[in-house]
């Protein structure tokens, strides 16, 4: 098994999602509120993981554009859970050494007086390890 295949198997395992159930209706991408800001859209995450093209997803920052709002999960007629696959790709990226997407040094210039703490802890949980 190649490294890429191992990573795909790990993504399937930790997400608990099965991309092979997908029937390509595209409803996940139609439901995604941020699809226009993503290089690869939710249905492509499902398709690429199923077809061994994970490397394309790992080279893109699309996984970091997902807001984990679960609209795609709620509306998928086949219960594929695209957001869980996207989260597993994001974890595959940030669990690598020195690969945090957001650095603590960047925070001071991004905050204003009203920003809730919730935003900072949420961003750290999604973007760093």
């Amino acid at each position: 098994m190649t490294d890429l295949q191992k990573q795909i198997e790990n993504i399937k395992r930790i997400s608990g999602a099965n991309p092979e159930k997908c029937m390509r209706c595209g409803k996940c991408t139609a439901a995604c509120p941020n699809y226009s800001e993503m290089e690869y859209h939710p249905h492509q995450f499902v398709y690429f993981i199923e077809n061994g093209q994970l490397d394309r997803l790992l080279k893109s920052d699309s996984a970091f554009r997902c807001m984990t709002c679960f609209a795609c999960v709620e509306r998928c007629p086949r219960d594929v859970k695209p957001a869980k696959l996207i989260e597993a790709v994001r974890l595959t990226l940030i669990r690598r050494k020195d690969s945090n997407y957001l650095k603590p040094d960047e925070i001071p210039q991004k905050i204003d007086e009203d920003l809730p703490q919730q935003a900072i802890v949420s961003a750290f949980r999604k973007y760093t390890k």
Partner: protein
Amino acid sequence: MKYSYYPGCTLKTKAKDLDLYARKCAEALGAELEEVDEWQCCGGVYTTAQDEIATKLSSVRALTCARDRGQALVTVCSACHNVIKRVNNDMAESEYVRTRVNNYMQPENPYKGETKVIHYLEFLRDEVGFDNIKKAVVNPVKRRIAAYYGCLLLRPGSVMAMDNPENPKILENFITAIGGTPVVSPYRNECCGAYLTLTDSAAPEKRSGLIVDSCEKKGAEMIITACPLCLYNLKKNGGDKLPIVYFTEILAEALGIK
């Protein structure tokens, strides 16, 4: 009736009104909210991967405290509610998570998801009852109010189980109970842009702008929410078109507390 209460990090700092009026209104409605002992931040977002164990521990500590007191656990912040309820579901349903969490924490009595987690809105609907709230209102709000649910209160519907995730009515029924007129926006359960506000502000600008515009076009005079991050994103990106407040503030106004 006594409940365990989990305020969360933001309610102690930037969202003090969400917390303050939740407590005051509960008292006025005859319920006692007892803060969880030494609670820790829930982390703001639930991490969906099943091998994420450390990120679930703080929720389990709060859930265990409520269980040991024999109380249901009340949350107010949408984010805390989403995280704690989903972790509770994992502890009940996933042997993988339950075993690892209990092995790590070594509690005297292993936690298995026994606690009932209820959002403050569910407390109002199911414990107090909207009919009783209607009777307790002294200042009917008499405004056209748009409810903004966001994503965290409702999804995933199978776990959150608060209301129909696509066509909810709990907040609209709440608005009616306090004497207001609910205004329904098609964007009420669409994401505001969430934590992308820190990494890619284009998303919350676009999403929150759409939400506020839609509420305004539907004739709303005000937007209510349960989430501090939604409130921030809507206020920052929606211009000054409409006042945006926490639902507990408007409840306090109706009950004559604020």
